[in-house]
């Protein structure tokens, strides 16, 4: 009896020590898998918005991800203003309107292709489609292409910084 209670105590004491160690090592293991600071500090990308041509898709790069920039034609702007879902997605820089978004399908992350004649995007992986403002028009993607954090700075656009236009989009649920 004396012995067994002493063993019981030793068992519990070991269990406590091992438990603390196990939790501690799990924390260390989790943190070791985190993205490195150098990866996180992937900085900002500044785009000169005067250089783009209408209805010509340009793919930029921000944090290793492709960024779609599509300068809208006057006709597109007109079409978009008739559709509130499209209209809120456009970014105005100076007098021009732009569609700027992360070029990864919101379904599973493939890069959709742009067809300038039909003014639409098609994702070849699972057949999802988007219109010229990158709003989704055919499932499986659950939503339009995501818009990266941006700030309008004169005729320049800074990606990675949250300007008032971006904050408004986020609040109203235009993008995630």
């Amino acid at each position, binding site marked *: 009896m004396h012995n067994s209670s002493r063993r019981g105590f030793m068992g519990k004491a070991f269990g406590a020590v091992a438990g603390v160690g196990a939790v501690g090592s799990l924390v260390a293991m989790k943190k070791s898998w*985190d993205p490195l600071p150098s990866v996180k500090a992937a900085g900002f990308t500044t785009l000169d918005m005067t250089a783009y041509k209408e209805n010509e898709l340009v793919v930029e790069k921000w*944090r*290793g*991800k492709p960024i779609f920039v599509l300068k809208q034609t006057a006709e597109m702007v007109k079409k978009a203003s008739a559709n509130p879902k499209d209209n809120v997605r456009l970014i105005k820089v100076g007098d021009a309107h732009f569609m700027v978004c992360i070029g990864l399908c*919101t379904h599973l992350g*493939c890069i959709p*292709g742009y067809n300038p004649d039909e003014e639409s995007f098609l994702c*070849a992986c699972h057949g999802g489609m988007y219109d010229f403002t990158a709003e989704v028009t055919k499932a*499986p993607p659950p939503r339009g292409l995501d818009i990266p954090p941006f700030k309008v700075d004169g005729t320049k656009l800074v990606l990675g910084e949250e300007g008032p236009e971006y904050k408004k989009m986020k609040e109203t649920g235009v993008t995630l």
Partner: protein
Amino acid sequence: MAHFTKATSVKDWLNQRLAVEKVEKVMMSEYWIPKNINFLWAMGMVLVITFAMLLVSGIFLLMYYQPNVNLAFDSVNYTIMREVDFGWLWRHVHGVAASVVFLIIYIHMFTGIYYGSYKKGREMIWISGMLLFVAFSAEAFSGYMLPWGQMSYWAGMVITNLFSGGSLHADGLVEWIRGDYVPAQAFLNRFFMLHVLLIPLAIMGLIGLHFGALRIPHVNNQDGEEVDFDAEAKKYLDGDKAGSKVMRFANDFMSKDMMVVGIYLVFFFYLVFFHYDFAMDPVNFDPADGLKTPEHIYPEWYFLWSYEILRPFSTNVGLIAFAFAQVIFVLLPFLDRSPNTVPASRRGIFKYWFWAMLIDMIILTAMGKVPPIEPFGTIGFYAALTFIGLWIALPFITASEKKV
């Protein structure tokens, strides 16, 4: 302390220290296998041999492979393929074996389903087998990342994105798995570690468990007959070898096993030498490019059926259907409510269930390969619904099965 005497032979010396004779009996000469079996019972040994070939070829590839995003592609396609003498052999053996091992796993699985080898005490054999299937799938996926071609990169992108859980938007989890916003150096390095160390360790442990799970219920036979292994073994050892229903694992059963393995190896090396291209996707001979998706992304053939269950639905429904397909096979011993352990051909409706499931999975596999256009999208959609429907129907049709 144990008493040791002067050894009369090397064998006796080892016997006193390691009980080699006893080990040989337990593992081989007195490990009893029923006689009433066919060549499908050799698939376990075929898998062991294939795993051994993967291990050996992998060791040689490991000596020249560079887990670095700038060097990986060339270390495989230039160093191993062109510079290393016989480097092509290790790569093609590794690639072909990785593909063929799944063919054998599926045959092994469907043999088990057909003969009811997951019932009456054999549940742990089935469960450990399905865990092995999961581990092999993870091993195949992580290995597919390593050449760092276009398919490696984009398969890595798509599969890790599954962990965002659709509408849950667990992007933090996806970035944690990758160690970056997109698959990059951290991603390649950790999948390299998983492929060459952690998952192979898990596989070896699970193989031990799978074999261990066989010891008590023993191997099933063609009629699902409950054999009294102790009585039959005694009959065999007493000299009535012909009358006994069992035989020794080695050398009796092994000799037949290795005969099948021999035929398999001829077929295997025919593929390695003349048709290795079926295991080498041409798209993966373009280096990874994060700014260009290949026109059509599809997994290797052995993942196509579950990929097709994901594809025809919207994101959330697709993810749920996919998760269902991944786990449902594990539950087979509990979803089959019938007391019968006999071949499917003698089980009434279950016979049709078995063939319907097999054909449906072949259709799903075919539809997963073609681009997502009509009529393939619709066929895939109904095949996916059939898959789910068959599993929902299983407990009901087996519960009403008559005892044979």
